[in-house]
């Protein structure tokens, strides 16, 4: 019997395992891994030297996906990244007309394709949570050291905390540096309008760190899997497996769990031959990602009627064009994430957080048809306007609503109903503010994300100070009515602030697992 079984190896699973090193711990995972092919060098130099068809478009034309099928984020769409969303045989289907989520069965989970933004949830962000920032801060500190985070103390420190323990901020590209300079010249005007800009805090190395190499500014982050500068939980998992600190079994799809007085039995299907296995443990931690964790809990309870809340961060995209940079050459040495911005003003009740991206690393064809020209004009626009362009991604907070829920049907498929209202008043305000410093855009160019596209999901098994009903969890992650089943991922987050949730998933996973570890230590 294992002390602990962890299901899933993403941001939550990897850090639960990390905190339980030394106990008899098993991680069960489907665990798809990246293809062996890779790209090395700078994208723009590589294009000159070799044919990159299979790495940019894909042997099966994977990156053309959005032309016919549901929209995917640029990273997920790339051929060398497709392993992240590859679905194993027998995995549950997601049935929804209005919500298109991305789930991952890869080693390291969706954090293989994350934007790597790392933000601490503060007191305001944790409203409705039964835990406080003091509960999480020691783990944020530990993670800052473990992961390697770049950042700087600037105007954003009042919202994001100071940058102590961080590596220097990443180098800005020309467009990023220009925006920051203009912001600094007009800081008062920006701040009077509630807009603050600064360097993002990123799990991307600006200097070599341990055995990982610093960011190469090679424009490959949208194409190349497992770039060592961009942290993936798979790095932590691999290191633990190599040192034999945890046991890791991939190729396994967990079908169900059954709880007994003295532990939990986990029923597992081997993907390669469909045979079934059973594992026993004293404590089980579910870390499959909010949607699949909720599904496994409902399926294990044979509950095909209960509707559980689903929360997702909505986001919008706003292109900005610097008129003075039209016709300037492409910035060959750059990293996509340029500047973080925060809106704290009258238009929204709480903080809005976003990122300004440069366009150098994204295939031009992905955006080319958005220009209001005929195709040959679009090509000219891609050539001359894209180096002058940045895209602002605006994330908003989200609360549970009765209309947004998931349940499972008798086949075990996840059924999601989701409804979202749109309000562009903040985006229009941001357009005005940026227009005043020379960045042109129009409200007709604002794109609202389709529900499900953010990859930030939470809410179905909310943590409460005093859980009162099934499918709630207590502050330690323990599922209501259970003695041994814990939830380690964002399924327990009762709501989502606008800040990227991944860093908090990691910190909370450590918190949940440390509590379990201390129970084992006390019982000795």
């Amino acid at each position: 019997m294992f002390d602990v079984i962890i299901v899933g190896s993403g941001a939550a699973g990897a850090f639960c395992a990390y905190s339980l090193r030394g106990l008899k711990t098993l991680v069960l995972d489907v665990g798809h891994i990246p293809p062996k092919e890779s790209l090395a060098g700078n994208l723009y130099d590589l294009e000159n030297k070799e044919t990159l068809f299979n790495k940019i478009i894909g042997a099966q034309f994977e990156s053309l996906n959005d032309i016919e099928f549901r929209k995917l984020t640029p990273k997920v769409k790339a051929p060398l990244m497709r392993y992240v969303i590859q679905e194993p045989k027998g995995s549950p289907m997601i049935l929804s007309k209005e919500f298109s989520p991305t789930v991952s069965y890869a080693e390291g989970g969706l954090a293989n394709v994350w934007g790597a933004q790392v933000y601490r949830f503060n007191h305001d962000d944790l409203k409705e949570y039964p835990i406080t920032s003091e509960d999480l801060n020691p783990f944020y500190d530990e993670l800052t050291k473990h992961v390697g985070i770049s950042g700087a103390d600037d105007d954003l420190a009042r919202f994001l905390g100071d940058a102590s323990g961080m590596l220097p901020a990443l180098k800005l590209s020309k467009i990023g540096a220009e925006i920051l300079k203009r912001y600094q010249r007009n800081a008062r005007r920006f701040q009077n309008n509630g807009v603050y800009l600064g360097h993002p805090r990123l799990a991307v190395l600006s200097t070599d760190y341990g055995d990982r190499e610093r960011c190469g500014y090679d424009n490959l982050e949208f194409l190349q899997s497992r770039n060592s500068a961009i942290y993936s939980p798979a790095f932590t998992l691999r290191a633990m497996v190599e040192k034999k600190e945890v046991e890791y079994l991939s190729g396994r799809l967990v079908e169900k769990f059954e709880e007994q007085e003295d532990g939990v039995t986990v029923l597992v299907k081997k993907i390669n031959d469909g045979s079934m296995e059973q594992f026993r443990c004293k404590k089980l931690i579910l870390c499959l990602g909010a949607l699949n964790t909720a599904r496994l809990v409902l399926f294990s309870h044979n509950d095909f009627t209960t509707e559980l809340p689903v929360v997702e961060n909505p986001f919008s995209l706003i292109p900005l064009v610097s008129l003075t940079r039209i016709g300037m050459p492409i910035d060959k040495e750059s990293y996509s994430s340029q500047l973080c911005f925060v809106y704290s003003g009258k238009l929204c009740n709480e903080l809005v957080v976003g990122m300004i991206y440069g366009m150098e690393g994204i295939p031009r064809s992905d955006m080319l048809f958005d220009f209001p020209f005929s195709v040959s004009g679009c090509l000219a626009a891609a050539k001359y306007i894209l180096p002058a362009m940045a895209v602002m991604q605006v994330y908003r907070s989200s609360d549970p609503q009765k209309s947004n829920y998931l349940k499972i049907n008798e086949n075990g498929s996840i059924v999601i109903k989701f409804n979202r209202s749109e309000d562009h008043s903040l985006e229009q305000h941001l357009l005005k503010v940026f227009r005043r410093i020379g960045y042109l855009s129009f409200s007709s160019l604002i794109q609202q994300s389709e529900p499900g596209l953010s990859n930030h999901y939470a809410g179905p098994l909310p943590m409460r100070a005093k859980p009162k009903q099934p499918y709630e969890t207590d502050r330690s992650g323990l599922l209501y009515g259970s003695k041994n089943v814990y939830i380690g991922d964002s399924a327990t987050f009762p709501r989502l602030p606008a800040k990227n949730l991944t860093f908090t998933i990691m910190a909370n996973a450590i918190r949940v697992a440390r509590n379990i570890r201390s129970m084992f230590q006390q019982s000795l």
Partner: protein
Amino acid sequence: MMATMSDPAHLRAEGELLHYSVFGTRIPEPVLKKYIEAHHYYLRSAVQSELTWMAKAVELGLDLEALEIALRYSDKNHILVRKLKILVHITEAFGAYRRRFVNEHPQRLRAITVLAFHGFRTVSKFLKGKFLLWRLNQFV
């Protein structure tokens, strides 16, 4: 009636005309091969009426760039819009097209002139496309 995909001869003629419409040159064989191959994965569920429409436009040698801009905002999933996207995506992965997509030198005056030219050209292409659409719909 559903069609699984166009036949390779049609796709070849179509790829040649599409490429000429956008780039003004003959399509290189490797690009054409990829364009045809892409149809093993995409547009497999195109209905017969769409394929007929496309075949007629190619047979008449119409200005596909003009048709595309006339269709892009009214019917973004039109088969011509999607086929042009496929072709442009494919070309971007070939080094020979790099200069079409990437600007490596400062050339502000040229950029502004070219973009202004394309602004006017787009308006004329749009009007031409609307006219061609009207004519084509009388044929199919």
